[in-house]
């Protein structure tokens, strides 16, 4: 008996040791898997090999292009997602990607920008995962210059505080970190006096000095929404000459002094909260990709499986207790248990995500590989691949078939004696089925034929099922 217990304890101890070792290994393993997941979740685009590469002062330029179709580019890009551009064709250290945002702007009134650079190695890959940060201005052209429907009254020799609430949606990207955005990055200019139309030229002359512009956290505001972003601006009217009605215009930029795109908002009253539907900045033109700074891979927003904010919130729930305050200690104990369960949940969530990512191929990788292989096979096998192309062609034609009501029968001419057997005739069924006397009957006919079609399909399914289950011929059984 004693021997058995010893034997069991020994096995348990070995098991625990193995489990501990696995946990340590798994910890690292999970970290790697998570990182890879982050990379896989990035949307990868390749530069276009057909675009010319130019050398200017030993810097190489190419145009980034998806199918060389700007509309397609816009349809692909979505604000708030992270993109990485990889280049298979260049082998240089310093590569510039030119973004012709003018053309994009002219299509949809949308723009995007490059905020950060990334390191780029000579194997053709960016080593920094957050190399590109596209910030979209999702405003339509008309929203660039809205009419100031409501203005606010300012009086001279006053200081005004304005809180701007920026509404976030799934596409919004904000930088509330001061190191990323500061007074130099954001400008509020344009105090248009009197009622009028807000536009960039009218708003371009500041009449009042701005004292401060700062991001503030929702916690600092009474009733602040944790899901929104807030900016506090303060300005005074001491240098102004009189009392006016004002409109505010906002310009936000990131240190590049050209191509400002103003964002306007309307005001209802001074010292009030303004809501901006979307707030973003624009930087057009090209940007050099040389910045070596890159945050750790897991720091990509939206990619982390663990929510550090949630953990912080939970950890902040612990109270500083007096030694004899048992209730407080009990509260802390409960909070601790909650936190343990939360972390266990996070662990299993991460584990499941890691396992899923282990067996899920990247759709981008699959697509690119498949297309490349298809091109290669078509090139090498030549006419042998034509049957497959034909099937593909027929499939496309079936998908694209639309209802037509007119038919044109071409003329038939005997080539020898040049005798016309019958001339070209066209007939339009549409005139018949749209006739008010016939149309009601046609509608009934149409419903009946479609019904029969569906019933025929159900019968077909039944026959096939019988054929599989019974093993006999469908027509005999069904």
């Amino acid at each position, binding site marked *: 008996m004693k021997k058995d217990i010893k034997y069991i304890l020994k096995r348990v101890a070995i098991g625990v040791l193995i489990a501990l070792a696995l946990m340590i290994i798994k910890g690292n393993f999970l970290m790697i*898997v998570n990182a*890879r997941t982050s990379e896989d979740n990035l949307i990868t685009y390749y530069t276009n090999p057909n675009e010319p590469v130019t050398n200017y002062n030993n810097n190489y330029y190419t145009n980034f292009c998806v199918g060389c179709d700007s509309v397609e580019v816009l349809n692909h890009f979505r604000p708030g997602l992270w993109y990485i551009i990889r280049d298979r064709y260049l082998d240089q250290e310093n590569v510039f990607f030119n973004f012709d945002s003018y053309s994009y702007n002219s299509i949809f009134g949308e723009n995007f920008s490059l905020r950060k650079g990334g390191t780029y190695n000579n194997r053709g890959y960016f080593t920094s995962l957050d190399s590109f940060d596209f910030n979209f201005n999702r405003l339509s052209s008309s929203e660039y210059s809205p009419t100031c429907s409501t203005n606010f009254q300012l009086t001279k020799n006053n200081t005004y505080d304005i809180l701007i609430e920026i509404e976030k949606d799934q596409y919004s990207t904000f930088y509330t970190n001061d190191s990323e955005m500061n007074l130099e990055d954001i400008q509020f200019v344009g105090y248009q006096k009197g009622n009028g139309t807000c536009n960039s030229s009218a708003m371009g002359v500041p009449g009042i000095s701005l004292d401060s512009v700062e991001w503030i956290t929702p916690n600092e505001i009474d009733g602040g929404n944790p899901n929104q972003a807030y900016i506090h601006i303060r300005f005074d009217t001491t240098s102004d000459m009189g009392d006016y009605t004002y409109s505010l215009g906002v310009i936000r930029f990131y240190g590049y002094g050209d191509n400002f795109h103003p964002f306007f908002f309307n005001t209802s009253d001074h010292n009030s909260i303004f809501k901006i539907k979307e707030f973003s900045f624009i930087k057009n033109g090209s940007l050099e990709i040389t910045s070596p700074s890159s945050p750790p891979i897991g720091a990509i927003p939206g990619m982390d499986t663990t929510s550090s904010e949630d953990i912080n919130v939970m950890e902040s729930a612990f109270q500083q207790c007096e030694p004899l305050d048992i209730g407080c200690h009990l509260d802390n104990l409960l909070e601790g248990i909650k936190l343990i369960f939360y972390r266990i949940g996070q662990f299993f969530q991460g584990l499941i995500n890691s396992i899923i*990512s*282990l*067996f*899920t*191929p*990247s759709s981008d*990788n*699959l697509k690119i*590989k498949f297309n*490349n*292989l298809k091109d*290669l*096979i078509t*090139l*090498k*096998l*030549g*006419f*042998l691949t*034509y049957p497959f192309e*034909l099937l593909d*062609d*027929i499939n496309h*034609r*079936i*998908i694209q*078939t*639309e*209802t*037509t*009501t007119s*038919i044109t029968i071409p003329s038939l001419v005997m080539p020898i004696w040049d005798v016309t057997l019958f001339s070209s005739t066209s007939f339009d*069924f549409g005139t018949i*089925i749209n006739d008010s006397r016939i149309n009601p009957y046609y509608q009934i006919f*149409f419903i009946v*034929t*479609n019904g029969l*079609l*569906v019933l025929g*399909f159900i019968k*077909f*399914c039944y026959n*096939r099922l019988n*054929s*599989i289950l019974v093993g006999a011929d469908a027509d005999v059984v069904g």
Partner: protein
Amino acid sequence: MLLDSFINILYSLLTFIFEHLPTLPPMPSSVTDVISSFLNTLFGYMGLLGIFFNLSILKTIFYLVLAILWIEFEIKLLVFIIKKIPLAGMS
């Protein structure tokens, strides 16, 4: 990640094989033109079916029928293979 690695290996292997094959000429355009003009005529009149049936239903059912026939074929093939295994006890 595992599947990605597997796909990468398979891709490299197939690329290696196909790159060393001789290049065959493509199908002559005279042949493809004839087939293309035939298909143009055929599918030009195919739209008339829309007078009698709802084309979207028809197309859906067409693809479903193809799928069902394919599944049936696969099941029969599978049963045929299993029947050839003596240990499976189905022969």
